[in-house]
């Protein structure tokens, strides 16, 4: 596709207006305009989220679910409203199926520790894929050590396409869980999770979907997907750090023991015994991340108000444009060219190591990620120590791509 065709597909997203909502984008780096291309690691925050958090702390802050006073009631209302916002965001049947966690990592660990320890035994198999983030590998390794479960790994092809047939071949009578990413953080592949879930459900195997990289880019409907667990993190959807989400089907959550013990999650406690609350509170021991949850609610409202079609059109336009521009650079190879990709572009250059690329780009105001992207097994699969990765969000423009391209040409100049 030519650059002019891409331009003709100009999206209906008012990116200039969006950019004005993100104060950090006005901040020069080394006296250069900031081209922030690392939203897959963590997205920047709009003023609306920042203001919400400040306002919540300045005007309506107290601990939740315990105070007999107005402020506590007000904070509790806002915290629980955020839970409802998250439930609508995922189209969950009920906000009781939304558990707040610290992040995606904790959400997966919660499932592994609570559901996994209860229902998995030696020889039981958990199927993951080659494109998982460490967060969806290591918790299962812990269960492997503790319980002797077996991990099966569904492959991708050289382009990074998820191989549905090969995945289905791994399912057998010992399969107890499929834990799979929705979108690869390292190479952008979109996994056909609806088909994965259908195949698993034909064998009555529940499926956990790691939606960390999907939630910022596409509409997620846990009912349409028929997902059993769906997890994502707040800071990648333009919300604060310290707040993540576990959606779990109510029957599953109800069958699970607590993850951690403490305040908030109990019904009664004596010195001999405790009884526990119903989900989601059973899984939220201790004072939760109150203002972070409220901030996440605002971030979701902000993102949804833009319209998914617009967000996706802009990001896909940027992905195509960046792919074209980067292909102009001699000696640059894009890693991961799956048919269905989110706006994540990994690449290597024959003249320079990703770490050197990252340093030179940084001095040009271009922020990208260089490294293994917490996906070391995938890097080994592609026989690469690391890649450079540009990832796009709602505030990115073709100017960012042009700035990236110019900086990459400078890398060629230095190392070429």
């Amino acid at each position, binding site marked *: 596709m030519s650059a002019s065709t891409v331009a003709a597909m100009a999206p209906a997203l008012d990116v200039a207006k969006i950019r004005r909502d993100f104060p950090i984008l006005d901040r020069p780096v*080394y006296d250069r305009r900031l081209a922030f291309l690392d939203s897959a690691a963590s997205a920047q925050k709009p003023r609306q989220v920042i203001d919400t958090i400040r306002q919540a702390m300045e005007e309506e802050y107290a601990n939740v679910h315990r105070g007999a006073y107005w402020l506590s009631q007000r904070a509790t209302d806002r915290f629980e409203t955020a839970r409802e916002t998250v439930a609508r965001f995922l189209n969950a049947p009920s906000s009781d199926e939304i558990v707040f966690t610290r992040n995606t990592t904790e959400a997966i660990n919660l499932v592994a520790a609570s559901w996994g320890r209860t229902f998995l035994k030696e020889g039981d198999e958990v199927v993951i894929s080659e494109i998982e983030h460490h967060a969806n590998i290591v918790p299962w390794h812990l269960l492997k050590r503790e319980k002797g479960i077996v991990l099966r790994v569904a492959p991708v092809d050289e382009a990074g396409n998820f191989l549905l047939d090969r995945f289905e071949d791994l399912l057998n009578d010992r399969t107890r869980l499929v834990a799979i990413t929705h979108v690869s953080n390292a190479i952008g592949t979109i996994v056909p999770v609806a088909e994965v879930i259908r195949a698993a459900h034909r064998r009555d195997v529940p499926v956990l979907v790691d939606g960390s990289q999907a939630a910022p880019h596409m509409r997620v409907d846990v009912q349409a997907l028929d997902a059993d667990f769906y997890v994502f993190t707040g800071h990648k959807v333009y919300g604060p750090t310290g707040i993540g989400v576990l959606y779990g089907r109510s029957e599953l959550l109800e069958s699970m023991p607590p993850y951690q013990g403490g305040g908030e999650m109990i019904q009664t406690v004596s010195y001999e015994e405790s009884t526990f609350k119903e989900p989601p509170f059973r899984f939220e021991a201790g004072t939760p991340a109150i203002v972070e949850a409220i901030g996440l609610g605002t971030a979701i409202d902000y993102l949804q108000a833009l319209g998914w079609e617009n967000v996706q059109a802009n990001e896909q336009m940027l992905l195509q444009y960046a792919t074209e521009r980067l292909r102009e650079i001699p000696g640059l190879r894009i890693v991961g060219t799956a048919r269905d990709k989110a706006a994540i572009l990994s690449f290597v250059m024959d003249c*320079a*190591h*990703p*770490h*050197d690329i990252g*340093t*030179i780009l940084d*001095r040009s105001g271009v922020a990208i990620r*260089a*490294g*293994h992207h917490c996906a*070391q097994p995938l*890097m080994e699969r592609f026989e690469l*120590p*690391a890649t450079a990765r540009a990832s796009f969000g709602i505030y990115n423009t073709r100017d960012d791509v042009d700035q990236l391209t110019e900086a990459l040409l*400078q890398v060629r*100049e*230095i*190392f070429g």
Partner: protein
Amino acid sequence: MTDDLRELYQEIILDHGKRPRNLRHPEDANREAKGNNPLCGDRLTVYLKVGADGAIDDVAFEGRGCAISTASASMMTEILKGKTEAEAHRLFETFQEMCTSDEFDAAAHDIEDADAIERLQVLAGVRQFPMRVKCATLAWHTMNAALEGEEKVSTE
């Protein structure tokens, strides 16, 4: 290009990065250690042949990494050959200080090390890039571990 980038990626560093010296596995090495920088995935192995008199008769490395870590490893092998173990330890500490301290003063160090320090000065540009200091020092940490009889070192 900014001045600090120009200083970081000097000709000599680019040259050692592209054509590293002593990139091999000596058959008769009697010390070795693996170095790993989990942050960027750089891995290398340093091999040393230390004589009965404590002299480093041979030093080489294998592995792959960024230009800075490869150049640093390559230059280290050239500098350490013929030094004693004690000198290698001392240079390791001097080099670390050079890469991290703005107050580094070459004149304050042992006059015997003057040549080595002068050659290593080309890597001092990493001071302006705190996230790259570990790249420059990985080979040296690994060499030090090999001398101390440790098998593995990680810079994180």
